[in-house]
């Protein structure tokens, strides 16, 4: 940067980031790196292995007896000091920071151990004995919404907590009159951007003040601050939240840390020492949070020429097991904008919110946008097919016209500015759509599967804090008081030496806000960005904050950035006034440039910036009359366009509305159905770009996650509620080989609603990319619809190819759906015993023998006729732990056949299974045939879905081998390919 740069030119430049050196050199401190007080204790959490169960009893005596354990807390303990979290809907759906009486999802926190270190705390978890009474679980939202479904909160009477119907314009009339009705149903999966750094909480309690202090990587919104302080029964002033300058990714997800913040506060209070908790990866994937999965029936009334006159959406949004604030935000964040980029005057919406036995939903980047745009843009694609039109023509025919801004959408969004047709021209021309179409033609001519998909979306920025109140009718809103708006803060301090420092309310998660703020402030003060020290760790006891504080809804560029701009202007005006007096010139003639404050008419007449700043500190008595001493200015910014919802339920859900036009070409392998993104073009109008380097970084990042959502990422559950994706080997994140480099194109239509003109940019591709790819895939294979994530197996039915039979050696056991919908492992085997059936029979029925045969069995008790209870130590590959087994023998047909049924429950999960054993007399002994079926849930299912088949089989085979050894024989084993494979994986016992 040369010294010639004048005031006002740093904003808009692709300046390298202030933050980077410390991050690249390993000096940046993340939450887990911050120093903690000596004597701080460490927490580990015991979690539910069941998706739905009553807690019958919890025995913590053995865990508490360990010398390194300071305390073990369970639900009834924390109820003494805390209240349930307040919820957006006033319903009997109380949730505390630990489960009370009932667990409602796999991974729900049941107890917390506080010990000297984390290793010891985790060891103690194994000694807590919880008895559960399993209840039927419900996973599918449609099933959960049915009347006879298992109910998560019986007092609420239903899993459907809210149902609202909205009408804007005359949708029924438009549908009645329309020539075509086109519809589609989409089922958007559960996923999350899963930051690489998990949650970290350090909490302490001051008993003399009855006050809590927390340092955590919480990202806001601070609407959740009162939720936490009220749960802790203290006013906000006695709940101090500090957040670090560096966070290892947020993506909204670090909002859902709040139940753990409360839990660690209660733990610290209980033990009288600071307590630290660091979430591990399994905990994060299992229990942190997920974007709500959503089913949408979308319908459009369409005229002959492709013009849409009405949309109808029926949405069923799945919030998992609890409704944690600010949920159900994703269902309403887009409410004003349900018509997307289109000028559609008539709109009908039904919103239903349902609970299921899954991890509670929360904030995840995109926040409702990916779901609804998947419906809208798939629908536009369907309209084109059904009317025999080109999808891009359908899009163009319906766009909001460039001369209609600011445009009030049917649902109430006030689209601030843009020129959507022009953006599409830019994308088509500079992105090379014609060439891409030729590529498709050529590929198809060669017999390949090649498709092109489009998406045109409006990207909201900075949420209206009042939009969620649309969930209750106007009358109720009137009673409760209307809500609407959004406040942001920034403070600039100039010290006596002229050093400028900035603090603000943006709670960064890695996006580079410090750099952008330094550009904004430098421009106003005639300094260089590197002269500005920006410190973004936040402290509710020292920094200004409001409900909107935080890092979410792409608010930075139209919220905090504007507040910093306004604060810098205040400092600038003050400096000008002081300098005017000192230089004896009229203030109109003064310029701030190059570190000087100059009389523009006579550039020789100037003062150095630090001299003028110093005057406000050194000679406060000489300041112009009425001017406050010192040089610290805070500005707050609350845009007037963010009104509360109207009587007709119209709501301007966000402040700024950018525009994206994406298209892509994909090719599908004719043999494997693998999807390759051949080319991806994304055109953005995000208003003024404050720093193009950082802006593009946001696009690349959102795009990458969009590709992950399209092709790989999903939190998978068994129908019984077991969680199946607890490692990064199961929950698949895209790597550098799956994500192509998109071509990014920009145009800049500044928003007239902020002085900086910038709009949000960080979420658009999370919304546009999944549906753009899905549209291309449908185009390639001619499918009517496809649900995410699109993995090859879903496409095979559409592909014309020869089936190859699976290799036979490996088909020993397999996963199957059980009759009640659960996920089970089934298998069979046989073995030879060198003795007669009667002896085998007696051995099987004798508890002493049984104790010796069951792998890892300790203290087998007889609890009834042919019924036993045993503690079993299981170790298979990386999985190990103590389990409580219940075993019974039934259908006895001596000495021919018997049914063995049993269940296992332990800290790692639970399983239930049964098997049939048949004995056949042969020449020198007995042939034993067995079949089995096992269902597993809990941690084992979450981390090793793929290993379970092998593990169960190993255990069962072990059982029969030990039986043979017991009978004096040698188990004859034919080393199959499968056995060798298992041995490779470590299953070699």
């Amino acid at each position: 940067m040369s010294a010639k740069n004048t005031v006002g030119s740093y904003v808009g430049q692709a300046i390298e980031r202030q933050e980077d050196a410390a991050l690249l050199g390993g000096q940046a401190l993340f939450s887990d790196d911050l120093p903690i007080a000596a004597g701080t204790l460490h927490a580990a959490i015991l979690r539910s292995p069941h998706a739905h169960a009553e807690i019958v009893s919890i025995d913590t005596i053995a865990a508490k007896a360990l010398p390194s354990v300071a305390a073990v807390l369970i639900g009834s303990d924390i109820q003494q000091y805390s209240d349930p979290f307040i919820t957006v809907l006033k319903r009997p759906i109380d949730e505390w920071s630990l489960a009370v009486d009932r667990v409602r999802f796999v991974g729900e926190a049941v107890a917390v151990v506080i010990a000297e270190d984390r290793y010891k705390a985790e060891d103690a978890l194994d000694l807590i004995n919880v008895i559960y009474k399993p209840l039927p679980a419900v996973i599918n939202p449609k099933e959960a919404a049915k009347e006879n479904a298992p109910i998560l909160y019986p007092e609420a009477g239903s899993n459907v907590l809210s149902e609202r119907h909205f009408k804007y314009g005359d949708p029924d009339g438009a549908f009645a009159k329309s020539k075509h009705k086109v519809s589609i149903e989409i089922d958007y999966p559960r996923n999350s951007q899963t930051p690489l750094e998990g949650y970290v909480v350090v909490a302490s309690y001051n008993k003399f003040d009855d006050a809590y202090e927390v340092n955590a990587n919480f990202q806001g919104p601070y609407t959740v601050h009162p939720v936490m302080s009220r749960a802790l029964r203290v006013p906000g002033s006695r709940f101090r939240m500090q957040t670090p300058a560096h966070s290892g990714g947020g993506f909204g997800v670090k909002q859902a840390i709040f139940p753990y913040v409360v839990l660690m506060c209660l733990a610290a209070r209980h033990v009288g020492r600071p307590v630290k908790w660091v979430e591990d990866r399994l905990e994060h994937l299992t229990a942190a949070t997920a974007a709500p999965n959503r089913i949408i029936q979308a319908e459009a009334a369409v005229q002959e020429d492709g013009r849409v006159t009405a949309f109808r959406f029926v949405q069923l949004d799945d919030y998992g097991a609890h409704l944690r604030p600010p949920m159900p935000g994703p269902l309403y964040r887009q409410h004003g904008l349900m018509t997307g980029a289109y000028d559609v005057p008539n709109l009908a919406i039904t919103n239903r919110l349902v609970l299921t036995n899954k991890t509670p939903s929360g904030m995840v980047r995109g926040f409702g946008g990916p779901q609804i745009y998947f419906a809208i843009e798939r629908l536009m694609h369907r309209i084109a097919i059904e009317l025999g039109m080109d999808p891009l023509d359908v899009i163009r025919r319906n766009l909001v016209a460039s001369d209609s801004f600011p445009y009030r959408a049917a649902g109430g969004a006030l689209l601030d500015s843009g020129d959507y047709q022009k953006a599409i021209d830019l994308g088509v021309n500079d992105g090379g759509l014609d060439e891409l179409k030729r590529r498709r033609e050529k590929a198809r001519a060669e017999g390949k599967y090649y498709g092109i998909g489009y998406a045109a979306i409006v990207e909201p920025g900075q949420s209206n804090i009042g939009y969620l109140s649309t969930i209750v009718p106007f009358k109720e809103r009137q009673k409760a008081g209307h809500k609407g708006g959004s406040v942001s803060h920034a403070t600039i301090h100039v010290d006596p030496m002229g050093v400028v420092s900035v603090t603000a309310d943006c709670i960064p998660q890695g996006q580079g806000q410090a750099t952008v703020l330094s550009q904004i402030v430098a421009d106003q003060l005639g300094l260089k960005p590197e002269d500005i020290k920006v410190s973004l760790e936040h402290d509710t006891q020292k920094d200004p904050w409001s409900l909107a504080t935080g890092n979410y809804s792409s608010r930075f560029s139209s919220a905090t950035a504007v507040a910093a701009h306004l604060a810098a202007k205040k400092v600038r005006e003050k400096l000008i006034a002081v300098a005017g007096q000192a230089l004896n010139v009229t203030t109109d003639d003064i310029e701030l440039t190059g570190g000087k404050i100059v009389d523009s008419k006579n550039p020789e007449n100037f003062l150095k910036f630090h001299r003028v700043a110093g005057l406000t500190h050194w000679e406060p008595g000489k300041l112009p009359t009425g001017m406050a001493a010192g040089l610290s200015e805070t500005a707050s910014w609350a845009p007037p366009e963010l009104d509360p919802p109207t009587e007709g339920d119209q709501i301007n859900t966000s402040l700024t509305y950018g525009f994206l036009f994406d298209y892509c070409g994909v090719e599908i392998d004719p043999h494997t159905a693998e999807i390759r993104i051949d080319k991806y073009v994304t055109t953005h109008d995000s208003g003024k770009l404050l720093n193009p380097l950082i802006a593009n970084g946001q696009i690349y990042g959102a795009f990458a996650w969009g590709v992950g959502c399209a092709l790989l990422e999903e939190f998978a559950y068994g129908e019984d509620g077991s969680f199946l994706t607890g490692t990064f080997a199961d929950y698949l994140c895209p790597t550098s080989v799956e994500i192509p480099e998109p071509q990014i194109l920009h145009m800049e239509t500044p928003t007239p609603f902020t002085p900086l003109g910038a709009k949000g940019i960080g979420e658009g591709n999370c919304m546009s990319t999944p549906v753009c790819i899905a549209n291309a895939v449908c185009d390639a294979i001619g499918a009517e619809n496809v649900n995410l994530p699109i993995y090859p197996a879903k496409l095979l039915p559409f592909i014309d190819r020869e089936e190859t039979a699976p290799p036979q050696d490996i088909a020993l056991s397999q996963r199957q759906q059980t009759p009640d919908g659960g996920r089970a492992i089934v298998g069979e085997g046989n073995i030879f015993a060198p003795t007669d059936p009667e002896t085998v029979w007696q051995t099987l029925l004798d508890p002493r023998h049984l104790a010796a045969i069951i792998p890892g069995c300790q203290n087998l008790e007889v609890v009834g006729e042919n019924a036993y209870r045993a503690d079993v130590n299981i170790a298979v590959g990386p999985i190990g732990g103590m389990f409580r087994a219940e075993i019974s023998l039934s259908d006895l047909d001596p000495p021919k056949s018997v049914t063995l049924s049993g269940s296992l429950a332990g800290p790692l999960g639970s399983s239930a299974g049964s098997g049939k054993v048949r004995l056949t007399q042969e020449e020198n002994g007995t042939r034993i045939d067995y079949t089995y079926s096992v269902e597993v849930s809990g941690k084992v299912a979450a981390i090793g879905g793929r290993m379970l088949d092998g593990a169960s089989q190993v255990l069962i085979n072990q059982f029969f081998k030990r039986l043979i050894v017991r009978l004096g024989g040698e188990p004859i084993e034919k080393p199959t390919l499968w056995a060798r494979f298992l041995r490779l994986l470590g299953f070699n016992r």
Partner: protein
Amino acid sequence: MRELKSDRQHKITFTLDGRQVSGDAEPHLLLSDFLREKLGVTSVHVGCEHGVCGTCTVHIDGKAVRACLTFAVQVGNRRVDTVESLSNNEGELNDLQSAFRKHHALQCGFCTPGILMSVEHYLRHNSDPTESDVRDMLSGHLCRCTGYVGMVRAIMETAAKRKSGI
């Protein structure tokens, strides 16, 4: 081979970023926890502790290794280098780090130390990689923020410069 008692602390002496250091560890203590908690090397991050994400990557005797899949007792008398060895004491970044900054190859920076260590190891043995080689190599790491674009550019540029001796 040295015999280790499972419940005992064992003294480990090794070279860390060029300095001789020592500390005590039980046999089951992971190298990542040992470095972070006992020696205060917080630049070694852990993102999964099961070997998939690569954030914990360090060099052991010059080779890139996952610290979360290594026990502390395995590094006795060996050389361990972390990302802290790449910049000098005056706070100057090396060429690869500077290229990462120039190309905006990091956002939150949590994945970055591990990725830099893998890349350094890789470039030492592959001086002229193609973009697809680089992408293949990077696929041993997860980054949730950047989409890898800036990283690929930074690595390609650094490789070219190192090759031509700039």
